[in-house]
Every structure is written in structure tokens, then in C-alpha cells.
């Protein structure tokens, strides 16, 4: 029975995290898959969301900024707004330049954020991070607590998916695709390319902030490691590329598949002891990187390829 509950809890954890990555994958798909914006600072937006929501919702501790005790939902909204504002600033500067510059600038945001988290201990509690972040439903008995949170995350994924699908089919989404595939034509058709791009960048980054907030509430802790690009930026990119960028189903499938593979290999590497216990996990990361390269080279359209309108062939 205990073993069963252990497996059940593990599954709940797995699905919840896959769902949170799904939220962020939808955001990255909007930016890269649909609009062609290159965001390599996902970890930065993730950390902004996580910290903002944590500061908004925790009780007074005296160790960091906070004590506002706001409800969970308000924390999530604040996280999205904060990430969106930062994205707006970056977008204003870089959106007219080629994607490479945007990528460099997003790395910059993640880096500056790392400095702030490290230096402003009064607000962030420095390296010790913020703990005791409230999680909704945590007072429910046994596995019901994480199960309820999992359902909440999945419901959010469903709502976001529905919204983005509608947006994609609406004129708004068609303009996005037009900009990605043929910018001069979109411009000639009188579309304000910069405005559409900034919109996509803001919404996508807000979803990454939402992912950060959901993670912080789930783990009940956030520390400066949140800015580590290995776990967020890199995994998320692999998820989107493997799943198939350009369509929301692909993004969600990628999040599920890669997160499951990532967690399953963790069970194997956890068996190593001593010095190797520290090193072997990185072999796992290396292999994930290799999968990314193989998919990029051989199956560049991913598990679920983007459906292109009739009469159009694939473009590189």
C-alpha cells in the first residue's frame, strides 16, 4: 500500500511538472514556433515569475521582502505582469533587429537577474532563497493535496491551450505566421510587424513567468538556482524542438515526452554513489543535448509536425 502511494505521488509529481513545462512550452511556441522570436533567457522570466509570486504570497518572515500574504491567484497574475513588463522593455529595444540580438539580450536579462538575486538579500534572502511558499489545497489530507494541485495545473494548461488555439486561427495568429514566414510580404500588407512581435514576446514571456510561479508554489521554495539555464531554458527548447515547434499540440507532447524521459533517467543516475553520483547526471544532460542535435538535423519538424495551410510546402 505504501509502495502504491509512493508510485502515485511520484506520478502526480511527474504530471504536475510536465504540465508546468507545458505552460512554458506553449509560451515558447508562441515566441519561436509561431513568431520566430528567439528567447534564450527563459530562465530569467521563470525566475522573475517565481520570485514575484513568492514575495506576494508568503507570510511575514523578516528575512526577505514580503509578508503581503496575497492569495495564490493574485501571485500568479503579478508574476505574469512582471515578466510581461520586462519582456516589453527588451522587446522595445531588440525586436527590430535579427533574432540573434534578441537571444543575446534575453541572456543579459537572466544574467542581471542573477546579480540582483545574489546582491539584494533584503528582498530575496540571497542564496538561501524564499521558503514556505503557500501551495493551494495543501491542507487536504494525503495524496489529495498534490492531486488537486495537479488538476489545477492541468486545467490551466487546457485553458491556455484553448486560448492559443483560438488566437492562432484568428487573424492575429495568421498575421504572426505571415511575419515568421515572409516578413516583407506581411509588411507590404500593411501589418505593424513590430507590434505583433512585441505582443507575442510579452504573452510568451508572461507564460514563462506563470510557469515559474507555478513551480515555486509547487516546490514551496525558490532560490537563485531558478536562473540556472540548464533546467529551464535548455529543457524547454528541447521540448519544443522535439515535440514540433509551430503547433501547440507538439509543444505539449514535447513537454510530456522530454520531462518523462528526463525524470526516468534520473531514477537510473540516482543509483550511482560517490564521486560519480555528481558526474553521471551531466551525462544525462549531454544525451538530451545529443537528442536535440539529432532531431534538429534529421527530424526538424518534430514528433507532431506543424500543419501548414493547403497548397504550401515546407519552408526552412
Amino acid at each position, binding site marked *: 500500500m505504501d509502495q502504491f502511494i509512493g508510485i502515485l505521488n511520484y506520478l502526480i509529481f511527474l504530471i504536475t511538472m510536465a504540465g508546468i513545462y507545458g505552460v512554458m512550452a506553449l509560451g515558447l511556441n508562441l515566441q519561436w514556433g509561431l513568431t520566430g522570436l528567439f528567447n534564450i533567457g527563459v530562465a530569467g522570466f521563470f525566475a522573475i515569475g517565481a520570485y514575484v509570486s513568492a514575495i506576494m504570497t508568503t507570510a511575514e518572515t523578516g528575512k526577505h521582502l514580503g509578508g503581503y500574504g496575497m492569495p495564490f491567484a493574485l501571485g500568479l497574475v503579478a508574476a505574469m505582469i512582471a515578466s510581461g513588463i520586462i519582456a516589453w522593455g527588451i522587446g522595445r529595444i531588440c525586436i527590430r*533587429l*535579427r533574432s540573434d*540580438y534578441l537571444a543575446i*539580450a534575453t*541572456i543579459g536579462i537572466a544574467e*542581471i537577474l542573477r*546579480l540582483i538575486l545574489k546582491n539584494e538579500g533584503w528582498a530575496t534572502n540571497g542564496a538561501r532563497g524564499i521558503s514556505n511558499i503557500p501551495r493551494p489545497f495543501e491542507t487536504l489530507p494525503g495524496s489529495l493535496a498534490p492531486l488537486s494541485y495537479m488538476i489545477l495545473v492541468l486545467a490551466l494548461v487546457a485553458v491556455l491551450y484553448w486560448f492559443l488555439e483560438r488566437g492562432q486561427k484568428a487573424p492575429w495568429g495568421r498575421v504572426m505566421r505571415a511575419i515568421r514566414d515572409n516578413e516583407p510580404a506581411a509588411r507590404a500588407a500593411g501589418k505593424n510587424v513590430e507590434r505583433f512581435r512585441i505582443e507575442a514576446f510579452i504573452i510568451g514571456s508572461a507564460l514563462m513567468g506563470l510557469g515559474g510561479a507555478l513551480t515555486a508554489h509547487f516546490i514551496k521554495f525558490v532560490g537563485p538556482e531558478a536562473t540556472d539555464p*540548464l533546467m529551464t531554458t535548455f529543457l524547454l527548447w528541447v521540448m519544443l524542438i522535439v515535440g514540433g515547434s509551430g503547433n501547440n499540440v507538439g509543444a505539449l507532447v514535447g513537454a510530456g515526452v522530454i520531462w518523462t524521459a528526463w525524470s526516468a533517467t534520473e531514477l537510473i543516475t540516482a543509483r550511482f554513489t560517490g564521486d560519480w553520483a555528481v558526474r*553521471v547526471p551531466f551525462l544525462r544532460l549531454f544525451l538530451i543535448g545529443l537528442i536535440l*542535435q539529432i532531431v534538429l538535423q534529421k527530424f526538424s519538424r518534430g514528433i507532431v509536425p506543424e500543419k501548414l495551410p493547403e497548397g504550401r510546402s515546407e519552408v526552412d
Partner: protein
Amino acid sequence: MGDLLIFVNFYLLPGLVLGSIYALGAIGVSLVFGILRFAHFAHGDMMTLGAYLALTVVAVTGANPMLALPLAMIGTAIIALGIDRWFYKPFHDKSTIVLVIASFGIALMLRSLIRVIWGVEIESYSVGISRPLVFFDSLRIAERHIWIIGSTVVLMLIVHWLLTRTRTGKAMRAVSDSPELARLTGIPTERVIKATWMLGAALAAAAGVFVGWDTQLQTTMGWNLLLPIFASAILGGIGRPYGAMAGGMVIGLAEELSTYPWIGTEPLLSPGYKTGIAFAIMVVMLIWRPAGLLRGRVY
């Protein structure tokens, strides 16, 4: 100690050392961006690789890092050629933005491999503290700083010679200036690309060794330098190796000098934030003059 000497010993010299490191990294980033048309996100981790290759040489032979430097540069250049052959070349006829994703993947793969091979502990080339050399009673210069600044000057002269006096070097500049024109005049693109990787990777390795020598070796050292190096390349102008040298120096000096108490007795900028200077300079350049000081290309 006089104020001037404090300024020279603790602000100007570290600034020059940091500037040397940024400049060496930025030359490669700028050339790759100019010739292969993509932002190479694995450049920082190539620096880390060079630093750790030198660590093995130092550990095995007990030699001075200076002697390990050429081997690390050659080793990194060879590995960079391999990476280009297996991971970048398949995309040469495709959209260059895919190359950015591939290079981002390579960055993580390199770092993972470095952690598997060398572990995650902080390492250093030497044990114990070396005494600085003292000139004129009070000008104190650490021996390694002389080596780092001196080698950077020599390496830059070599780069200058390669780019202006050799056939391949001239071809590299031509491709960077105008790829269409270069192709029309029959410049062998493949050879230019190979030369770019060898030169960029060798300089990155040198920069990595110098960082490791000046401070310590960490597996994240290169990744953390990526931002100032890109900032240096953009400041100098993409595709402009001399601009990258100047850009690196300016940003290195700006970071160190920003913490000097120019007004009053407090540091002008809290030392914890000095790496933010690079980002600030880059943002200003992107708004005001994305082509960089030397009018490089904007993509």
C-alpha cells in the same frame, strides 16, 4: 600608498586583464557572426574547454600555464573543427537561426562533458599564493598579469598579421565584408569557415586559460562570460576583429573602473553589479548604434 598607485594596482591593471580576456573571446564571436552569420552561443563553453585542457596539461607536467597555453589552443581548435563538421555544417545551407539553437545545444553538451570528465569542483592551476612583483617600491603587478596582458598583445599582433598578410586571412575579411562578392570572386568558402573556427576557438581557449589563471576554473566560467563577450563584439561592430579587440578592452576597463570611488569615498557602482556594465553598454549600443563603433554589420 598613493591614490594613483591604488588606482593602477587595483582598478587599472585588473581592468586591462579583464579587457584582454574579453577581447580574445570577442574576436572569435565577431568573426563567426560576420562570416558564418550566426551568434555562436557555445563560444563561452569553448573557453571553458580550453581552460580545462590546460588544467590537464598543467596537472600532468607540472608546467606553468603559459606552457600549457599552446596545447590548449590547438586542442580546442581541433575540437571546434569537429563540432563544425558534425553539428554546424549540416545546416550551412539552411536558415542560420537553426545554427543558433544548435550552438546553444553544443554549449550545454560541452559543459556537461566537462563536468563528467573533470568534475564540478572548483580547480586552479597552482596551489598557494604567488607574490606580486614590486616595481618602484609600490607598483605591484602579479606575474600572471604580465603574462596575460603580454600574451594578449602578442596574440593580437598574430591575428593582425594573419588577417592582413595571409591569403586565408584576407579571404576571411572579404567574406565578412561582403559574402556575395567574395563568392563571386571564387574565394573558397569551406576553407574560410575552417580557418574561422580554428582562429576563434584558439583565441577562446587562450581567454579561458587566462580567466582560469587569473581567478579559478569553474565549469560555468565560460557561459558567464558570454554576455560581456557578445557586448564587446557588438560594441566594436559585428564582423570587425579590431573593433572586437577595442570593444573587449573598453568593457573590461569599464567594469573594473566603475567600482572606483570617483565621487566621494564610496565605489561608484557596487562591485556586485559590475558585470551589469557590459549589459548596460550593450543595450545602449543596440538602441543608439547597433552597427557598433567601427560600423560593422547589423543583421
